[in-house]
């Protein structure tokens, strides 16, 4: 009874520790993140108590609670957005599907080619997009009304920039033409357009751009439109590739990147393997092994004691271990435990594991 209870408490505490640690990563509020980490540490301290290391648990609680409180205090006093309001509204706009749920303001779609060719740009310029001033994600080939708010759609290419794209055809970096007065004017109008987007507010982050003015870098991050000049204007004269790279660098998380996914998978697998192979809990419950046996046999048999039925347990043990020869298991750990001195036990376990694996 107490063994089962211990197991339940153990599993519950470890679950709390893992879940709160994950909550620390997923929450947008600094305060909540600190609290979640603290809760995770306290659950770990509970595990320590369960394992009989209560002094360690007390030290864990004291150090981590005090440290976490001070950390939260300083963070909250210093940082711009301690409650996570801005981040939260960013999160509201992201696509909660698959791995993208973990990354903020990550550009969707494939990364564009390194250098967009001239034909591509011209083609994009010909298909003029009409968009809503309040909803930049709306884009239609024809003028009309926005399906979301009913406002009249405006052209993505305003006449000034269209004329400019004729005069400076083939130049993909209009930032280099700042001396041109007309171009400066279009830059300015682009800025105004972007501030009107910014009042919409949610998916946008202010960032000081080039030396001319501040621009809204991520206004079109969910769209990644490749429409020639309108895009270069809103991207502050970057090529699509540069813009994409910047968005990737600005993203809160790298989970969408393939190498990060591979690394995460590998470390998760490693953790699972470690959990399986580690003799948890160190003070194991009774129901796993009866009859004076001090070592769990790795097979959760509730009815059959392992030491009295050695044949069965050995078979099960070797099955668990995989394709190891039975001669290596000539000394079953159950046989050697009860008589041994306490200090030798851990060494025996280690040696046995090394031999077996």
């Amino acid at each position, binding site marked *: 009874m107490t063994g089962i209870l211990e197991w339940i408490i153990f599993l519950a505490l470890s679950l709390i520790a893992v879940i709160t640690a994950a909550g620390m990563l997923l929450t947008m509020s600094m305060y*909540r993140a600190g609290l979640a980490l603290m809760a995770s540490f*306290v659950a770990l301290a509970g595990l320590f108590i369960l394992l009989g290391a209560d002094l360690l648990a*007390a030290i864990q*609680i*004291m150090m981590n609670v*005090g440290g976490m*409180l*001070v950390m939260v205090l300083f963070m909250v006093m210093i940082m711009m957005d301690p409650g996570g309001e801005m981040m939260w509204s960013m999160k509201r706009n992201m696509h909660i599907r698959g791995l993208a749920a973990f990354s903020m303001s990550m550009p969707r779609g494939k990364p564009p080619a390194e250098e967009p060719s001239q034909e591509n740009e011209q083609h994009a310029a010909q298909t003029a997009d009409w968009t809503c001033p309040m909803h930049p994600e709306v884009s239609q080939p024809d003028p009309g009304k926005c399906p979301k708010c009913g406002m009249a759609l405006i052209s993505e290419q305003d006449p000034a920039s269209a004329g400019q794209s004729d005069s400076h055809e083939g130049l993909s970096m209009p930032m280099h033409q700042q001396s041109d007065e007309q171009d400066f004017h279009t830059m300015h109008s682009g800025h105004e357009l972007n501030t009107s987007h910014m009042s919409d507010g949610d998916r946008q982050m202010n960032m000081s751009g080039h030396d001319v003015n501040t621009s809204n870098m991520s206004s079109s991050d969910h769209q990644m439109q490749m429409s020639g000049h309108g895009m270069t204007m809103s991207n502050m004269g970057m090529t699509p590739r540069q813009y994409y790279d910047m968005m990737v660098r600005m993203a809160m998380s790298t989970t969408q990147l393939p190498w990060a996914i591979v690394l995460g998978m590998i470390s998760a697998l490693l953790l699972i393997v470690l959990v399986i192979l580690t003799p948890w809990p160190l003070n194991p419950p009774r129901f796993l092994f009866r009859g004076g046996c001090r070592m769990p046999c790795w097979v959760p048999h509730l009815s059959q004691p392992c030491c009295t039925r050695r044949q069965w347990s050995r078979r099960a043990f070797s099955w668990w271990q995989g394709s190891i020869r039975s001669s290596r298991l000539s000394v079953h750990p159950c046989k050697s435990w009860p008589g041994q001195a306490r200090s030798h036990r851990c060494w025996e376990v280690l040696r046995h594991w090394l031999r077996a694996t």
Partner: protein
Amino acid sequence: MNTIVLALLVLVCLLVGAYGMAVLQQLILLGPRHVGVALQWPIANALLLLRQEDLMPRGADGFLFRSAPFIALVVVSLTALVIPLGPHLIGFDPSIGLFYFVVLLSPFVVSLMNAGWSQNSKEGLFSTFRAAAYLVSYEVPIGFAAIGPVMAAQSLSTQRIVETQAGLWYVVWQPLGLVIYLLAALFVTFRHPFDSALAGDELEGGVFAEYAGPRLLLFKIALDAIFLILMSMGVVLFFGGWQGPWLPAPVWFVLKTFLLAAIVLLAAGFLPRLRHDQILSLSWKILLPASLLNITLVGILTLFIPGGGR
């Protein structure tokens, strides 16, 4: 099953003690002739709070706001486990009882911080900042003050500390430690001279500014209870715990605890209310060096006092 009954018993004792502490405060406030009023007042206040509307401010962090009073009460109940009421009357007697007690004082502040942070008001936020800023500055003195009896008893077990005071109470040769402990105890509970974190005047009650009804009642119970717990731990550390000549042990313990609490509350009434910076300089510039001096003195005295360093 036995454990659950024991835990419930500890909780009931704690609630009765908190009621007694509220009565004591009211007695000190009104004067000794108003015993009847003082006895009725906590009950009337509890009924009043239970009838109040259950308010939650707009924009509050609901989970933290709702859970904070419960965290406070849980932490206080956990600290109550290691207080020995008699030779075998103790909820839980680990070998590190006193350390466990000191450790659990910081999660109490977590509950206050949660309350202040979650309520989406300036008063609560300022109160949160202050509570967190004070955390270290009272934990260090209270820990160092508690080290004196530990050095003398050579044990962290609260029961053992009481037993070693059979011949001589530690207050006799560690008065400095007692003073530091009591000041820090007032600080932990944010009581009168150190009440700038929960200041009723400037911050509208600080973290309790937006609390009303049953949740405020829970917080008030938790605050009274933790003051009671701190006073009883003071009795354990310096006044021989449950030991006494004729009466049974729990009676002695309760008598000593309430006497100590009455003296501390009365004396605190004479102290001027300290400002934010004055509190911190008192803690770091006076209490901390004094507690280090106390440890040195105790270390020397244990060599000479019979039964001191056994």
